[in-house]
Every structure is written in structure tokens, then in C-alpha cells.
């Protein structure tokens, strides 16, 4: 964390994002920015708008108001060109969303071939390299239905990484996993953070948040309630509500907020 320079430019900037579904306000003016190599963890109760926020960043959900900046370009001004931006924003979903009819290797290489227009051989080499990075090169020829949940999620991480994104979004990457499979996925994400990947992670894994996050953002009812270093949020949050939430989640996941 110390290697991050204080004055580094933001790689991704979220400005005053609002989103309503009918009369239901999901996001009410969310702003933050993330610098190269940072990991931000977003926490908050279910229904607080965390997933919607991530989807607004790569425009899978179109925000009603506000803007998204990637490097120096405003994504929200270039909707015709959205696929150029989406390639640079990797996304990992809660329920993996692997392509069920393709084996692990094809899952990773298909976007390289269809989007980056790489030739088959080059794409395959790249895909194998990415599978190796998540420890699954031996499973390259297995289909999603033949993989465990943890392996599926690692394939989906490899699939996103293959596009060489400059920022990665993780939407509760371990919430659909059996407890004994969570570790292997968190390990992969931790290694990415260590390797300097810029990441936004929505999660309930407080131990993980504490060990990798540069900053934790607490969202409730579509607004940022609290944000700061893990140390600050775990020990001395601005709001009582934040403390309660962290305590509750930590209790649920078998870790108290106070142990170090």
C-alpha cells in the first residue's frame, strides 16, 4: 500500500451516480475514485445498491444521472463506443455466469477471438496462461458443469483477466460458494491485489476486506455512509450504523471486528 503514490491520477472516477427503478431509488448520488493499484472494498446490507453501482460502472445498467470516467475519457458520453470501455473493465459475477456450452479454455478465449480478433493460436496461448494464473490449466478442457463452484469462479476471473483490463469489478465473488471453496477464490483475488491490479470488490468477507483493501466504502440505501481505511472502519467509524453492520457481518462470518 505504501508503494502507491499519494498524487497518482485516478484510473476510474464515479461522479454523482443516481439510479431509480420506478419510484425506488437504488443509488442516490454516489461518488468516489480509485487510483492505479488500489483495492476498494464496498460493503453494505443487501439491497443497498452495491451490485447496481458496479453495473453502472460498465453500463450494464445505465445510470439516470451522473458520470463515469475511465482514465481521461467519460464513459457515459461515449455509449456508442461502450464495448471499447467494457474490454478495459473486467467483471466477475456472484454466480459466475460461465458460458455453459464451452469448456474452461473456450470460455476464456472466446472474447479474445470474437472481440479482440486474435487468431486462434494466439488466443489459446493467452487463455492457457490466464488459466495457469488461477491454477486451473489442468482443468482447461472441462466444462462448467464438471467444475466445482470455486473452480468456476476462478475460470470466470481468468476470463475477465484475459482481456487485460485496467480495472476489475468483483460482485460478491464468493457469496454463491460453499464455505470450504471460498478460500481458493479469495487467494486468487489477493494475489491480483498484490500484483498491482486495480480492483473494486463488493463482499461480505471482512477478513479479506481488512487484509487487502486500501479503502472500505460502506453503502446503505444508495448512499455512501462511511469510507476510510480498514483500520478506521473497523475501530473507529464515523457512524454508529457502520460499526453495527461490521459487527453483525463479522459475527455471521465467524470473525469479530476487534481481533487483529
Amino acid at each position: 500500500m505504501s508503494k502507491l503514490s499519494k498524487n497518482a491520477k485516478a484510473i476510474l472516477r464515479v461522479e454523482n451516480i443516481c439510479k431509480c427503478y420506478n419510484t425506488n431509488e437504488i443509488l442516490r448520488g454516489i461518488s468516489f475514485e480509485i487510483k492505479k493499484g488500489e483495492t476498494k472494498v464496498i460493503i453494505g446490507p443487501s439491497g443497498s445498491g452495491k451490485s447496481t453501482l458496479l453495473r453502472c460502472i460498465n453500463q450494464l445498467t445505465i445510470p439516470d444521472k451522473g458520470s463515469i470516467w475511465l482514465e481521461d475519457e467519460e464513459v457515459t458520453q461515449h455509449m456508442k463506443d461502450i464495448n471499447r470501455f467494457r474490454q478495459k473493465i473486467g467483471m466477475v459475477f456472484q454466480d459466475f455466469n460461465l458460458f455453459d456450452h464451452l469448456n474452461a479454455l473456450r470460455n476464456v478465449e472466446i472474447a479474445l477471438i470474437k472481440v479482440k480478433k486474435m487468431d486462434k493460436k494466439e488466443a489459446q496461448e493467452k487463455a492457457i496462461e490466464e488459466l495457469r494464473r488461477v491454477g486451473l490449466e489442468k482443468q482447461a478442457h472441462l466444462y462448467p458443469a464438471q467444475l466445482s463452484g470455486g473452480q468456476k469462479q476462478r475460470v470466470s476471473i481468468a476470463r475477465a483477466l484475459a482481456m487485460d483490463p485496467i480495472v476489475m469489478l468483483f460482485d460478491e465473488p464468493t457469496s454463491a460458494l460453499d464455505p470450504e471453496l471460498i478460500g481458493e477464490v479469495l487467494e486468487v483475488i489477493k494475489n491480483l491485489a498484490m500484483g498491482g491490479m486495480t480492483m473494486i470488490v463488493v463482499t461480505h468477507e471482512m477478513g479479506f476486506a481488512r487484509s487487502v483493501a486500501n479503502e472500505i466504502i460502506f453503502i446503505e440505501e444508495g448512499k455512501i455512509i462511511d469510507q476510510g481505511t480498514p483500520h478506521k472502519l473497523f475501530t473507529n467509524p464515523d457512524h454508529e450504523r457502520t460499526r453495527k453492520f461490521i459487527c453483525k457481518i463479522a459475527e455471521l462470518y465467524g470473525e469479530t471486528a476487534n481481533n487483529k
Partner: protein
Amino acid sequence: MMRENIMLIYQTYPYLINGSIITIGLVCGALGLGFALGVPMAVGQVYGNKFISGVISLYVWFFRGLPVLVLLFLFYFGLFTLIQLNLSAFTSAILVLGLRSAAYQSQIFRGSIKSIGEGQMLAALSLGMKKYTAIFNIILPQALRISIPGWSNEYAILLKDSAITYAIGVMEILTRANFVATRTYQPMPVYFLAGIIFIILTYGGVKLLNILENKVKTPGYGEER
């Protein structure tokens, strides 16, 4: 009497077999046309805007709402004559059965597409794929696999519906059987033979689709773990 019947069957079966070639051509043509129209219709209904899906719904409503015989007469004696389209009974039958089958097939494919869920589409889009690239490479390959059992149903139904083209004089199995029956005054053995041919064709086609289904099955998919 028994001997006579066997003789009659023996004498007429080449004539009926030739008719079954017409039937097969008719069914293949209609299924093919139905497939070619049904797939884009299903895609349009699921992913298209309100106007496109509205037009498709109207089409489906029309072709599912009328009896096949009414459709045949309406097009063959009505529309095609009105616009002076000089089509043979065979071609007209393919068109009408095909257009009708498209309505049914589109609903088979629509169900399959919907069963895949939007997650994979979101994943494809998040990788920077265009929507139609995702539809062609991700959604349809899976939807078509899932559709095979329903589609084999459509084959079996269409095959037997094809006999109704007798009404506009297509020289298929039933039309020929009818000729022989009225000429020989021996309906029983002739219609019996026609029935056997239909059963064999149904069984064979469904069996072939079954083999196809197993051949293109995704490994591990749909198995208990």
C-alpha cells in the same frame, strides 16, 4: 381374401413409397423454412424492441389461431391466386406448413432462450461483446441444444399434419392411398400400409433427432452431481 390383400399391398407399395418421398420433401422443406424463420423470430421476440416483438406476436397469434386446413385453402385458393402467384400445390404446401411451423418453432426457441437466463448475456456484454455476437456465439448454441426435444415433437406433428395437404392435391402418401382405395374398393390394406409408412417415418425421424441430441450434448450438463 388375405392373399388378395397381401397382393394389393405388394402391388401398391412402390406407389406409396414414392408418395413418402414427397411427404419427406414436404416435411423437410416446411421444417427448414420454419427453422429459418423461427430462430430469428424467437430472437426478435426476446431481444427486440416493443414494435418488433409486437409484430412477431401478431404473426404467431395468426398462424397458431387458424386450423391448418383453413390456412391451406386461404393461401392456396385465396392469397396465391389473388396475387397471381403461380405455385404448385407442393410448393404452396411447403410455404403454408413452413410459415405455420415457424410460429410454433419460434415459441420452442423462445422458451429455450429464456431458460438460459440473462447472466451469461451480461457476462458476454461485460467482456465487450456486441449483443448480436453474444446471441450467435453464446445464447443460440445453447438454446438450440435445449430445443431439440421440443423440436422433435414439432417434427412428429408436422409429419402427420402433412397428410392434410391431400386436400389441395399434393401427391403425398395419403393422396396416393386414397387413389388406390377408391379404384380397388379395398381401403383396409391400403390405408393400413399408409399408416405403417407414417409410423416408420415418425419413429425414424425422432430417433435421428435423439441421436443428434446426445451427440451435441454439453459434457456434464444436466447430470446429477
